[in-house]
């Protein structure tokens, strides 16, 4: 059956169209003449002759034959141009000299496929018994129409390449090589003639054996590459034939496949090699072919790179578009070249509203003037950071922090700007809130300070105004006693004494109240204060008491200088030392002052802690907090004189310096007062 098709296909197109028509017409006329003669004879004979039945039968047969011949001739008439077309298309697709652009031309492949299909349909019409699929397989097996096997294609296992080789036997140099050894498996007659070895000998040879020694390595590499790839074209080598002639040949290689029942995909069977003798071609053409080949290789490399770039682009594109920052590129004229999806999403805009539009359209109108300024600056300095406001499609403008970078050509010329923006609206809102809160706090603080000052002022004025009547009370009690002494009884004199004692106590309270009012009012700039000097001054103040009772005021180690108001700090030392001496039953009252590195609690930064300790009566821990309260006394007036304002004044002075004061003590075991003050440094 294959033979039939093959022979049909092999009819040369020229012969087919011109010569096959005439005998057909002659036969047709002859048959018609016979048919009509038979009909006339039939009518005659039926009337007159006993042979009528036989003649009639002959006539009928001729009519039937004529109809069949007519149908066959018609089909043949359609078949020839298609065959012709098939041959031409095949010649084009197989022609190794065709330009490289057509190598992978999809239109050509489509054409080949279409012609093949058309032909198979016609053949199946002609051979009614042939199953269509089978016919397709036969066509495929003829080898012209596929280079790389399409998936799922049904291959005929054998016979394919033998027909192919025979088909090409005319003038083409076509051969089959073993994929591993590159030994010939088959060679066309032209091939054998050109090379000078009969097929028998060629089967014992590898193609590499005839390649020029200098090109052998290259050939080996290129052929193996072709096998890996499935095909390669325009490979130029110099070979030596059996007659010792050096020839330049061009190879077209393609791997042929064969289907094995166990595997879904066909496996490589052998290498088909078409060879063209280029020896007589002018050197320029050879050169151009070499170039062509190089170009093909470069083209392939470029395609591969293009594919890689494409996948790279896809990867980076998602990184660009989905990044949590707003990306934007702006050209030298201020137009947006590109932006990412995050930006579009944030602003609620479409790509077309942004790309190609001036950048300033993103900004609120009040910011547009500033853009020119920083954009020009960017062209000079390459990096600029600004904060601006962008208009969102919905809602309030957004606060955007932008880091802009200039992208420059190798010669330093500004090309475009890359902007990375962050939406800082929420951050700014929070900051504004914090600012507002701290302003409110500062205001409250100021108010409090003002109130405190007013209170101090008030205490001071009250104290001041209380003193005048107090003075009157004491002075006039004295006058009464002296002026009317005789008239006053002993009881009256005692009453006067009570008045005067009370007045004296009241004066002490008022004095302390005044001192307290001033204690928090530290004056102006702090100065460096030498505590040792203040301790010496205190010692001098208590000199009389120390002399009469014995005892001492001692500095342990060195006292570092502090920063503060010297008058107030002097008062602080005096009050603490005075307390240590006053609340003291020891044989020899002793007050020690020392700077302490680790006072047992964290102290304000930049402060130094000091300790004032005594060997006095101590303070029960339950009173530790209370001793700093104003006019808080722990003892009866008869026991220890005093208003109870001393430690309140101390606390106010220390707090006014930003420090802390506290006490550690047990009843009967002396007291340790700690306070901190700003260090003056060395």
């Amino acid at each position, binding site marked *: 059956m294959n033979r039939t098709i093959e022979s049909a296909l092999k009819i040369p197109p020229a012969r087919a169209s011109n010569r096959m028509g005439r005998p057909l017409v002659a036969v047709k006329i002859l048959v018609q003449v016979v048919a009509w003669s038979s009909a006339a004879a039939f009518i005659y004979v039926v009337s007159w002759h006993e042979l009528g039945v036989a003649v009639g039968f002959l006539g009928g047969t001729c009519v039937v034959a004529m109809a069949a011949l007519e149908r066959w001739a018609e089909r043949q008439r359609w078949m020839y141009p298609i065959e012709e077309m098939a041959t031409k298309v095949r010649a084009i697709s197989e022609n190794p000299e065709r330009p490289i652009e057509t190598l992978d031309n999809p239109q050509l492949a489509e054409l080949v496929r279409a012609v093949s299909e058309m032909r198979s349909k016609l053949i199946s019409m002609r051979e009614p018994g042939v199953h269509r699929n089978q016919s397709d397989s036969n066509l495929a097996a003829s080898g012209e129409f596929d280079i790389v096997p399409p998936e799922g294609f049904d291959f005929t296992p054998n016979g394919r390449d033998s027909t192919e080789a025979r088909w090409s036997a005319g003038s083409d140099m076509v051969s089959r090589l073993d994929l591993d050894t590159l030994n010939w498996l088959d060679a066309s007659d032209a091939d054998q003639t050109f090379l000078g070895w009969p097929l028998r000998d060629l089967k014992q040879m590898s193609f590499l054996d005839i390649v020029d020694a200098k090109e052998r390595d290259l050939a080996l590499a290129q052929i193996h590459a072709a096998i890996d790839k499935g095909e390669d074209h325009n490979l130029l080598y110099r070979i030596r034939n059996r007659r010792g002639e050096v020839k330049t040949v061009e190879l077209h290689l393609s791997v042929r496949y064969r289907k094995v029942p166990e595997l879904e995909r066909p496996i490589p069977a052998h290498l088909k090699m078409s060879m063209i003798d280029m020896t007589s071609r002018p050197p320029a053409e050879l050169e151009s072919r070499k170039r062509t080949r190089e170009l093909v290789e470069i083209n392939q490399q470029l395609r591969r790179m293009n594919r890689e770039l494409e996948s790279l682009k896809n990867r980076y594109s998602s990184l660009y578009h989905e990044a949590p920052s707003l990306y934007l590129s702006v050209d030298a004229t201020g137009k947006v070249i590109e932006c990412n999806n995050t930006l579009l999403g944030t602003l609620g805009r479409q790509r077309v509203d942004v790309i190609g539009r001036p950048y300033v359209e993103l900004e609120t109108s009040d910011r547009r003037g500033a853009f020119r300024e920083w954009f020009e600056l960017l062209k000079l300095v390459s990096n600029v950071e600004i904060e601006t406001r962008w208009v969102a499609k919905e809602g309030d403008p957004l606060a955007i922090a932008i880091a802009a970078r200039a992208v420059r050509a190798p010669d330093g010329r500004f090309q475009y700007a890359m902007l990375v923006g962050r939406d800082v609206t929420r951050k700014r809102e929070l900051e504004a809130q914090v600012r507002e809160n701290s302003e409110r706090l500062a205001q409250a603080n100021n108010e409090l300070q003002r109130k405190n000052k007013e209170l101090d002022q008030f205490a*001071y004025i009250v104290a*001041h105004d209380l*003193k*005048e*009547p*107090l*003075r*009157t009370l*004491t*002075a*006039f009690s*004295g*006058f009464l006693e002296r002026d009317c002494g005789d008239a006053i009884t002993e009881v009256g004199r005692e009453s006067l004494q009570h008045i005067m004692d009370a007045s004296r106590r009241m*004066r002490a309270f008022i004095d302390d109240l*005044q001192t307290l009012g*001033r204690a928090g009012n530290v*004056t102006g700039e702090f100065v460096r204060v030498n505590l040792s000097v203040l301790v010496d001054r205190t010692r001098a103040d208590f000199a009389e008491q120390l002399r009469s009772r014995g005892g001492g005021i001692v500095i342990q180690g060195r006292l570092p200088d502090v920063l503060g108001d010297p008058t107030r700090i002097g008062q602080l030392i005096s009050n603490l030392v005075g307390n240590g001496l006053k609340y003291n039953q020891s044989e020899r009252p002793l007050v020690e002052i020392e700077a302490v590195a680790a006072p047992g609690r964290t102290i304000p930064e930049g402060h130094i802690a000091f300790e004032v300790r005594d060997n006095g009566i101590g303070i029960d821990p339950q009173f530790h907090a209370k001793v700093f309260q104003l006019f808080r006394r722990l003892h009866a007036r008869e026991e220890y004189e005093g208003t109870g304002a001393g430690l309140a004044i101390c606390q106010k002075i220390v707090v006014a310096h930003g420090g802390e004061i506290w006490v550690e003590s047990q009843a009967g075991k002396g007291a340790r007062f700690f306070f901190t003050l700003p260090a003056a440094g060395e």
Partner: protein
Amino acid sequence: MSSSFHILLVDDSPTDVLIIGRALRETNVPHRLTTFADGFSTLDYLRALSRDDSRIDETPDLILLDLNLPGIDGCEVLASIKSDEELKLIPVVMLTTSQREEDVAQAYRAGANTFIRKPDEYALYQELVKTLHRYWGLSALRPPRRLHA
């Protein structure tokens, strides 16, 4: 030595005036005491004196000036005195209950010759007037009554 140490006391507290008067008497300081209870009448009195040559001897030898006065306060009175070409020669001793640094500084800045806090005890008043007399009445040279005289 002038037998009449003329003191001009400006104080709105009658008891304080009584106390100072009694202290002067009881310490036997030879004196003449003129008192005013507010700044306006004090300034009127002093300006009248300075314009009247016949009353030149009435010019006080010392002014004791309280800070806290009704109307214009002691510091303003002091400033007026010390900005007057004639009156500025008279020594002014601020005598007040206040011991605020600001008050002290302000008084000296306005031209006070001394700033003394009012004592709490009568006995200390007696000491004070004796001291004032000893210093301003006996030791210090008094300024001439008239510059152009």
